C-alpha cells in the first residue's frame, strides 16, 4: 500500500529555519500540490520526502518506492533517449516495454533514438517525467514538472499524473503553475 507521511518536519537550510512542524499525509490515490514563493523551501521539502536531505526534526514515513523529478534529467548525454531511460528502468526492475510505454505517455516516442544532448529544454523536462513514469514507483515527487512545457505537453503531464493516482499511486508536486489536475493544495 503506497503511502507518504511527513510528521513534524523542520527544515534548516543555509543557516535559516525554513519551516517547522510540517505535517502531511498522502494515502493511495491522493495527490498534493505544494505552493509558495521562491525560496520558501518547496524543493527542500521534496528532497526531505525523497530521503536525500535529513530533516532537522520530525520523520518521514514512506511505503513504496520513490521517483523524483527535479531540475536535472540525470540522463546520459551521449546515449539515445531510449537507452538512457532504459538504464534507469533496468535499475528499477523494469524492461524496454516500460520505457516504450512511458515515452508514448509523454509524447516522446518519435525521439527515442535521438541522443539526449540534442534534446530541447522542454523535451528534456518531458524525458525526466518519462523516467519517473517508467520507474513504476508508487510515490512520485515532482519538482516544477510543468516548467518549460507547452500546452500539449501539459495535457499529457496531467493525464499521466491522473493515471498514476487512479492506479493507487501518490503524488507530491511543487509547482508555480496550475497542473490541470484537481489536487489538494499545501501552502508553504
Amino acid at each position, binding site marked *: 500500500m503506497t503511502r507518504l507521511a511527513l510528521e513534524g518536519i523542520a527544515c534548516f*537550510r543555509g543557516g535559516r529555519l525554513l519551516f517547522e512542524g510540517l505535517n502531511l499525509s498522502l494515502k493511495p490515490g491522493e495527490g498534493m500540490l505544494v505552493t509558495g514563493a521562491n525560496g520558501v523551501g518547496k524543493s527542500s521539502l521534496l528532497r526531505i520526502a*525523497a*530521503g*536525500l*536531505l535529513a530533516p532537522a526534526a520530525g520523520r518521514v514515513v514512506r511505503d513504496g*518506492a*520513490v*521517483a*523524483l523529478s*527535479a*531540475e*536535472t*534529467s*540525470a*540522463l546520459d548525454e*551521449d546515449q539515445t533517449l531510449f537507452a538512457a531511460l532504459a*538504464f*534507469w528502468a533496468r*535499475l*528499477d526492475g523494469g524492461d524496454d516495454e516500460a520505457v516504450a510505454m512511458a515515452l508514448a505517455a509523454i509524447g516522446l516516442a518519435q525521439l527515442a533514438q535521438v541522443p539526449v544532448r540534442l534534446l530541447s529544454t522542454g523535451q528534456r523536462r518531458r524525458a525526466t517525467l518519462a523516467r519517473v513514469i517508467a520507474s513504476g514507483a508508487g510515490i512520485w515527487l515532482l519538482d516544477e514538472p510543468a516548467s518549460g512545457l507547452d500546452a500539449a505537453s501539459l495535457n499529457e503531464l496531467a493525464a499521466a499524473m491522473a493515471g498514476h493516482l487512479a492506479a493507487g499511486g501518490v503524488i507530491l508536486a511543487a509547482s508555480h503553475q496550475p497542473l490541470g489536475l484537481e489536487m489538494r493544495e499545501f501552502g508553504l
Partner: protein
Amino acid sequence: MRAFAHGGAWLPLVFYLLVATLFPFAVGPDAALLAKVGSGALWTAALLAALLPVERLVRPDIASGVMDQLAIRGQSDEGIAAAKLLAHWLSFGPLLMVATLPAAALLNLDGPTLTRLEIGLLLGTPGLAALGLAVAALTASLRSTGALIGLVMLPLAVPLLIFGASSGAGALRLLAATSLLFVAGAPFVAGAALRAGRT
C-alpha cells in the same frame, strides 16, 4: 551496479608516454643513468597521469543528478564509490601497464627492471585509483579545485611512489600493503564525503 567511464580516457596514457619520451631528452643519452632512474621517472609519470581524470570522477554525476537518483533507489554511497573506483582503475591502470613496454625501451630499462616495474604498477595503480576517487569525492562540492587535487593527492601517494620505485627486498610487499589499505579505505571515505556533501 554500473560504473561510469567517459571519454578523454586517452589523456593519462598520452601524458605517461610523453613524460617517458621527454625524460631521455632532459637527462641526456647516458644509457646507464637512464636505466638507473628510469623506474623512478615512470612511477612519477604514473602518479601525475593518475591525477588527470580525478576532477571528472564524481562532480559531473552530482551535477547531472545521477547521484541523487542512485541514492533514491537505495544504492549505498559506499557501493557507488566502489564501482567508481573499479571503473577509474580500469580507465588508466591497464593502459599504463601496456604503455610501460615502449616506455621502458625509451629509458633503456632491462628485463628484470621492467618486470618489477610492471608488477609494481599492477599493485600500485589500484591504490592511486583509490586515492583519486577519495579526493574527487572530498572536493566534489568545491567550486573550482585547481591545484587542490594535486596538493592533497600527491603527499598521500608518496608511499606508493617510494615503495614502487624502490628496488629493496620487501618493497613490493609494502607497496601491496599500502595499496590495499587505500583501496579498502577509499569507498568508505568517498561514501562519507558523498553523504556529507549532499544538500
